[in-house]
């Protein structure tokens, strides 16, 4: 299908940068070898909540080989944050989670760093610890941020504490509709904190240059946000900070959100470099990462739905209690998203949902892959099955009954343009054998759906430079962590400029040279940089055509470019090599540099006028539950996704399969576990269980065609939505297998057995 229309778009050409990755070239942040670099390390709080009475660094400083020791006293009195500015890079006067950075050391070797960190004497005065956000909301709870006011939009009668953000969703008259419903189902779901556990540890390096500028290397998803935050926290002019991106060994949102995600590792490293007047590099230990960097928050989800006998949903009410952790981090955005999504993506005319994002003494919420989405969808889609069971309806039928159509409104989206939800459900049913497959004892089948935002957000640009040999250099502001720079971007350039993909280079982000970008976040790679790159390539092509027009004695409009030849349409013999024209540019316009920008205002206007073309998905699976141990094995797993036009199908499938795997991990085993003092009990990979190949089914992915998105060529973002339906799809299959509804994640043997026992209790 794609091939007829395009020459390379829609094909799965091997990624750029593949050879470096399979041969072990040292291209990642942790592989950097900077001349005469010192090792840096961070001292972290051993209390989840305490006053810092004093810090004595004198002994640490006296150790031979120690070049700098810094605390909050050495840094400008500046705080950071995304929505609430509530955090110092090094804790000042107070620590709020076990992992809060307190001091940092730069020394000649990692061993000396370790030794010095042990010699920093911090006197703490422990304060009461609060880990459960519902406890933290109570007026009797200890205040975690005395100087942070409660959100202004809180309801007047809300008697709450420690709330850092509040969202309300309201449509129609839910009270009246609920009262008039034939059936009301009221449930509570709970998800736990997981860590994204990208494999490459977080790193930062900083070097003070001779001219007084500071060069910072970061394996961060948002280099420009890192530049802004580093400059601000060190009280330097923005122009004195340059951030260089490396290739990134996984991020999943865990390395996004500026410096928030890495617990300020970049400015701390820069502070050390300034103090030591030497280059410093910090690489976090993996167990240190688990306790200190940003995570996917746990949430408690109250959900209540009124339906008519025929299965029509009439009302939804609910409450989200979203754990921000010790600081606001990305909590306000993730919590708001979760609150909206608890309203579901079905026709629901009357809705009221309150969303509270709450401080606790745990590590901080980040924008981890589909922030807020999987939590909400676990509740929504498990709940849909509970309602269907009470109605005696087929779960898939019940969903189809409440399906929105083009032009309809759903919670958080005033108008939908295209709705692929029904088709994804239909295909998922067919692929899994819904109603047909013979299930053995203790086997069950489940389905769940999901959606994700496609609304406009922060943008970004692209520059496409045509070199004199006809090769092309592309600058975008997005980093490579297995995402668009190696996959979609080179295809777009090759398509528009008629060059082989192997002639396209995509440059790593350098804030001195790359166009500004908000970061590789929010499934926006293809939408932002794809759009910008396409426009930049077209701009470059137009420049080339203007330059070639004279020589070919034709109008620029009559030219085309194929196989690195610019030629007159219909007269292929009249042609000039791309390289010749690109070289001629040197004496005419300097260089062919195409510029493009993702115009979010235009995208927003388009969405307002025609509606949102957001992606939908349905996942279905078959599981087998061992009723004696509670162990769940996934026998088959089907993922059906509308992501618009797949520019690089293998990359899109890879995103979906990886996202599904991450949520399968969250469903079955992943969880950051705390003791009552707020100490993480499973920081290392020995204890933090993640899916290995043994527990993974083959994910059978189907891409649905025919629902164009707002990205280039009709593409939609694909990085996050695969996480959304998984938790409920598995929980629903467990319910189908053994008739037990597990409402608390993970769906581990322990929790499944507990649910089995609890269900037996009221009957006896």
């Amino acid at each position: 299908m794609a091939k007829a229309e395009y020459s390379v778009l829609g094909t799965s050409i091997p990624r750029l940068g593949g050879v470096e990755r399979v041969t072990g070239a040292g291209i990642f942040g942790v592989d950097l070898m900077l001349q005469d670099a010192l090792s840096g390390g961070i001292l972290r709080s051993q209390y989840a909540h305490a006053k810092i009475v004093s810090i004595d660094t004198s002994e640490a400083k006296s150790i031979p080989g120690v070049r700098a020791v810094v605390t909050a006293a050495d840094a400008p009195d500046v705080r950071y944050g995304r929505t609430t500015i509530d955090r110092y890079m090094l804790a000042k006067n107070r620590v709020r989670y076990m992992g809060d950075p307190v001091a940092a050391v730069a020394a000649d070797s990692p061993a000396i760093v370790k030794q010095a960190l042990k010699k920093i004497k911090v006197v703490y005065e422990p304060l009461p610890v609060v880990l459960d956000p519902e406890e933290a909301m109570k007026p009797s709870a200890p205040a975690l941020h005395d100087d942070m006011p409660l959100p202004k939009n809180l309801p007047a009668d809300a008697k709450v504490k420690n709330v850092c953000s509040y969202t309300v969703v309201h449509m129609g008259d839910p009270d009246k509709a609920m009262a008039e419903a034939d059936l009301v189902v009221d449930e509570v779901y709970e998800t736990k904190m997981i860590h994204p556990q990208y494999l490459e540890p977080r790193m930062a390096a900083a070097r003070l240059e001779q001219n007084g500028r500071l060069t910072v290397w970061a394996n961060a998803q948002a280099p420009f946000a890192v530049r802004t935050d580093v400059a601000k926290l060190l009280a330097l002019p923005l122009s004195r900070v340059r951030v260089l991106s490396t290739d990134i060994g996984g991020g999943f949102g865990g390395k996004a959100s500026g410096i928030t995600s890495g617990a300020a590792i970049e400015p701390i490293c820069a502070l050390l470099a300034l103090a030591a007047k030497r280059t410093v590099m910090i690489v976090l230990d993996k167990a240190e990462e688990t306790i200190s960097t940003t995570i996917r928050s746990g949430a408690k989800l109250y959900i209540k739905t009124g339906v008519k006998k025929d299965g029509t949903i009439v009302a939804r009410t609910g409450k989200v209690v979203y754990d921000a952790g010790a600081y606001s981090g990305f909590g306000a955005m993730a919590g708001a998203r979760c609150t909206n999504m608890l309203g579901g993506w079905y026709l629901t005319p009357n809705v009221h949902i309150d969303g509270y994002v709450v401080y606790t003494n745990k590590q901080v919420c980040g924008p981890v892959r589909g922030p807020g989405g999987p939590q909400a969808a676990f509740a929504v889609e498990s709940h849909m099955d509970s309602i269907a069971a009470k109605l005696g309806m087929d779960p898939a039928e019940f969903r189809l009954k409440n399906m929105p159509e083009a032009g309809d409104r759903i919670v958080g989206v005033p108008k939908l343009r295209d709705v692929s939800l029904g088709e994804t459900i239909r295909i998922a049913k067919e692929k899994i054998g819904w109603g047909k497959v013979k299930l053995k004892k203790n086997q069950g089948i489940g389905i769940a759906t999901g959606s994700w935002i496609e609304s406009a957000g922060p943008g970004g640009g692209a520059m496409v430079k045509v070199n004199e040999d006809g090769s092309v250099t592309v600058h975008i502001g997005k980093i490579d962590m297995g995402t668009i720079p190696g996959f979609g971007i080179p295809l777009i350039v090759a398509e528009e400029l008629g060059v082989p993909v192997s002639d396209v280079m995509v440059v790593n982000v350098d804030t001195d040279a790359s166009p500004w970008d908000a970061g590789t976040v929010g499934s926006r790679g293809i939408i932002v940089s794809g759009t910008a790159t396409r426009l930049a390539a077209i701009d470059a092509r137009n420049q080339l055509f203007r330059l070639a027009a004279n020589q070919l004695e034709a109008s620029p409009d009559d030219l085309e470019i194929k196989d690195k030849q610019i030629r007159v349409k219909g007269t292929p013999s009249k042609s000039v090599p791309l390289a010749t024209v690109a070289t001629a540019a040197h004496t005419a316009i300097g260089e062919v540099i195409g510029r493009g920008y993702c115009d979010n205002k235009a995208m927003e206007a388009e969405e307002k006028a025609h509606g949102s073309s957001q992606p939908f998905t349905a996942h279905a699976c078959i599981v087998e539950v061992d009723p004696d141990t509670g162990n769940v094995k996934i026998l088959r797993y089907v993922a059906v996704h509308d992501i618009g036009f797949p520019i690089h199908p293998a990359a899109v499938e890879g995103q979906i399969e990886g996202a599904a795997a991450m949520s399968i991990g969250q469903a079955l085993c992943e969880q950051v576990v705390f003791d009552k003092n707020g100490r993480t009990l499973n920081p290392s990979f020995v204890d933090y269980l993640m899916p290995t190949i043994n527990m993974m089914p083959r994910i059978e992915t189907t891409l649905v065609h025919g629902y164009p998105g707002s990205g280039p060529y009709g593409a939609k973002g694909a990085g996050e939505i695969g996480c959304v339906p998984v938790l409920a799809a598995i929980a629903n299959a467990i319910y189908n297998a053994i008739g037990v509804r597990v409402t608390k994640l993970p769906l581990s043997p322990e929790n499944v057995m507990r649910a089995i026992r609890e269900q037996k209790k009221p009957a006896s």
Partner: protein
Amino acid sequence: MSLNIRLVVNGTRHRAKIEPALSLLDFLRDTLGYKGVKICCNTGECGACTILFDGKPVNSCVVLAADAAGAELVTVEGLAEGGRLHPVQQAFIDTGAVQCGYCTPGFIISVKALLDRTRNPTAEEIEEAVSGNICRCTGYTKIVDAIQIAARQLQGPTGLTSKARS
């Protein structure tokens, strides 16, 4: 106290003076510069640092450099021959099994060890061979595809490099 060791890495002889507590991973990465051996969990759980130690795959983070005295090691840097990728390397690129690529060197070494043993592995043998390697990007689907393609390549009439493209 430091030790003098000799060993062979990817066919090259090395002599070094090392501290007894130094891990083989740190030795390979920081002393000898084999950055293709990836650092991650440091607990032998993720497989990113997998190398061949006298032909057998090991997690180099939980082996002491001292224990590698006299050993013959192969890292991912040692697989391509004369600029031509090993079929396992090529298959990982071709199938889209390389997303971020951080786990890739470890996987490739584990798969090479498997295919050195058998060129016709069963699904169970494939699963077993990479059960100690964690990938967070792919969901393993395309990695399994890559392993099967590499195995088929190696079954080819002229062995190792018959159909490999570089």
